[in-house]
């Protein structure tokens, strides 16, 4: 007998309040943090009638990683790299490994993650569950396009290895399936080879939205990574003015001699942490208008071949830890939609509506999606995606969002479930035509609905 913790000791559950990155709609759940597969299975066995959901680093904005009254498995304890094949650029790792960790480990070896969202503080399990996308969507698709296989713990307690070819139904229900098909234990991902850790970036400032859209349509094909920051408070002739940044990983020859000595150098870390003391009304029309003006003015009109670090180009917000606290205790929500190509009018109308309302979004991002994948609930589809964040105390926000919903729906658009925190459940089937197939698979692999989240309950997924 030993007094120390044994390998299969059951971690204890703690009832705590959980919320998403937007810090809205918290709920209480019993959180368990397993550190190996046996503990995951044991926690699944201990569930109550309120079910189980996996949680990673809590970067979903709304409630998909919450489960009121039930069990939430904090998967960040499953953090091992299981296998590496540098020849083929493959890595197999546990679900709780973050993209931050993968980048830190693999950039010095000459590999980058195939897809990264605006933060690298997301887990591999979460990246699969939300089928995350990044600046290279038009070129490389979303995260699950680069997943070769997934090991899952199913509702019946069995482990399964699923691949896109071997079990397409379950694989594509799991890709973007918000964790509702089973518990992702590990996955094999194809990494992207890079020669250097620096991005060569071209920047263009556009006078308005029309100019930005024309430029993006024209230049997208030339770059792997593109995105535009948009000033949603600009009006009139400046409506929707953008700062467009396009880049590639620099080739060794692109670097100045000094940097060539250590081309894959990568430094992680942050500059500061926001204290939890920010008054709720700080981000308002005035401050955000000023911020947007400065952000726009600081960008060069036209600049080519500027070398930027991975953090500077891909994850500038990661420099500021807990940046969501800027919105104060009342929190904020993200609103991300996509409208198909040919529906540019809808996009323009949405930007006009936001600008007219004066709703203060500072991290507004415009991006062109390429083809979507087979994921039943995967968000990206060919078209324009606009991402906004609004403090929840924005006057008249509910009304504005209702107007925007209408614009998105009439233009055959849809919302991103990883960002959603308030969509009307009635709109879901119209936005996701493969929702029924998702439900069929879920009914087959989890007939009792063991895997459930606040979002799943809210939307009737």
């Amino acid at each position, binding site marked *: 007998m030993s007094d120390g913790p044994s390998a299969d000791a059951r971690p204890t559950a703690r009832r705590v309040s959980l919320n998403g990155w937007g810090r809205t709609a918290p709920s209480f759940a019993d959180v368990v943090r397993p550190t190996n597969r046996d503990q995951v299975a044991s926690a699944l066995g201990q569930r109550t009638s309120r079910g189980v959901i996996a949680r990673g680093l809590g970067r979903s904005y709304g*409630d998909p990683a919450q489960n009121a009254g039930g069990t939430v498995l904090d998967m960040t304890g499953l953090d091992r790299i299981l296998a590496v094949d540098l020849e083929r650029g493959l890595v197999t790792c546990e679900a709780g490994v973050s993209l931050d960790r993968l980048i830190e480990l693999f950039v010095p070896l000459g590999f980058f993650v195939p897809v990264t969202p605006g933060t690298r503080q997301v887990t591999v399990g979460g990246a699969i569950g939300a089928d995350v996308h990044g600046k290279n969507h038009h070129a490389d698709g979303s995260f699950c396009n680069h997943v070769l296989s997934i090991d899952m713990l199913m509702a019946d307690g069995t482990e399964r290895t699923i691949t896109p070819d071997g079990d397409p139904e379950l694989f594509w229900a799991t890709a973007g399936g918000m964790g509702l098909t089973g518990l992702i234990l590990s996955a094999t991902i194809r990494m992207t080879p890079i020669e250097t850790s620096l991005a060569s970036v071209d920047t263009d400032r556009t006078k308005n939205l029309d100019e930005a859209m024309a430029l993006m349509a024209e230049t997208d094909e030339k770059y792997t990574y593109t995105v535009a920051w948009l000033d949603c408070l600009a009006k009139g002739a400046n409506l929707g003015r953008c700062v467009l940044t396009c880049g590639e990983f620099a080739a060794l020859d692109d670097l100045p001699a000094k940097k060539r000595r250590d081309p894959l150098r990568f430094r992680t870390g942050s500059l500061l942490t926001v204290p939890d003391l920010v008054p709720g009304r700080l981000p308002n029309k005035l401050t955000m208008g000023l911020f947007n003006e400065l952000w726009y003015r600081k960008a060069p009109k036209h600049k080519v071949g500027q070398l930027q670090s991975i953090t500077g180009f891909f994850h500038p917000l990661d420099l500021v830890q807990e940046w969501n606290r800027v919105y104060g205790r009342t929190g904020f929500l993200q609103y991300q939609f996509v409208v198909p190509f040919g529906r540019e009018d809808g996009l323009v109308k949405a930007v006009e509506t936001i600008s007219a309302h004066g709703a203060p979004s500072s991290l507004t991002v415009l991006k062109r999606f390429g083809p979507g994948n087979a994921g039943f609930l995967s968000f990206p589809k060919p078209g324009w995606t606009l991402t906004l964040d609004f403090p929840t105390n924005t006057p008249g926000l509910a009304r504005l969002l209702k107007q925007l919903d209408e614009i998105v729906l009439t233009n055959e658009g849809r919302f991103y479930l990883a960002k959603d925190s308030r969509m009307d459940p009635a709109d879901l089937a119209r936005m996701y035509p493969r929702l029924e197939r998702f439900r069929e698979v879920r009914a087959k692999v989890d007939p009792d609905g063991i895997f459930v989240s606040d979002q799943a309950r809210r939307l009737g997924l």
Partner: protein
Amino acid sequence: MKDALGAPQSLLVLGGTSEIALTTARAMVAERVRRVVLAGRPSAALDAAAEQLRGLGATVEVVGFDAAETDDHEKTIDEVFAAGDIDVVLLAFGVLGDQDADEKSPAAAARVAQVNYVGGVSAGLAAANALSRQGHGALAVISSVAGERARKSNFIYGSTKAGLDAFAQGLGDKLHGTGVHVMVVRPGFVRTKMTEGLPDVPLATTPEVVAEAIVKGLRRKSSVVWVPGQFRFVMSALRHVPRPIFRKLNI
């Protein structure tokens, strides 16, 4: 589940023909509430209320519930929760009684207490336990400014509301940190069928105003809501009026 803007999706009304509750239900259905359960004694009025809410687009279930029959409360309420999550429980039943007649008939007075207080304790606990298991949700208890200080003109009703109010406050504190929000609603004189024929008083309000205050209070997670808001100050002053003067006031 409540969404990021605090809009609930499901509502259980205990006292399904209460005008305040039905006006609140209509206001909530106009937002995101899609499932409404009306619990009350079977009647044509209850069915009509359900039909009206269905007309607004909600799915409505009618459940038999008698505030005075406390033995059935837990079973009835548990069954409602078993069929699906409830985001908001509105404890809205209550009787005014007839002060003058009830003073002469202790049994009648006890019936007012049985419904308003005893029924409130039983149904309130049953709802609170179900909400706790669920890990989220709100319980709004309709109290009254009459419970703030007993007046000689309606102390029977006032004392039942005083008891209910104290119960709900304690319950709210007990549940703090469980994800369940308890809100005490203290309306003044509300012009409804319950108060029909009674003379109007200052600061009289309408079910619409009360409903709006409830919806707003739930969104803000208030612990006490006065309707109209001025009552908070009026009652605060009245509470400190010396007894010899208070008993002479014609209120």
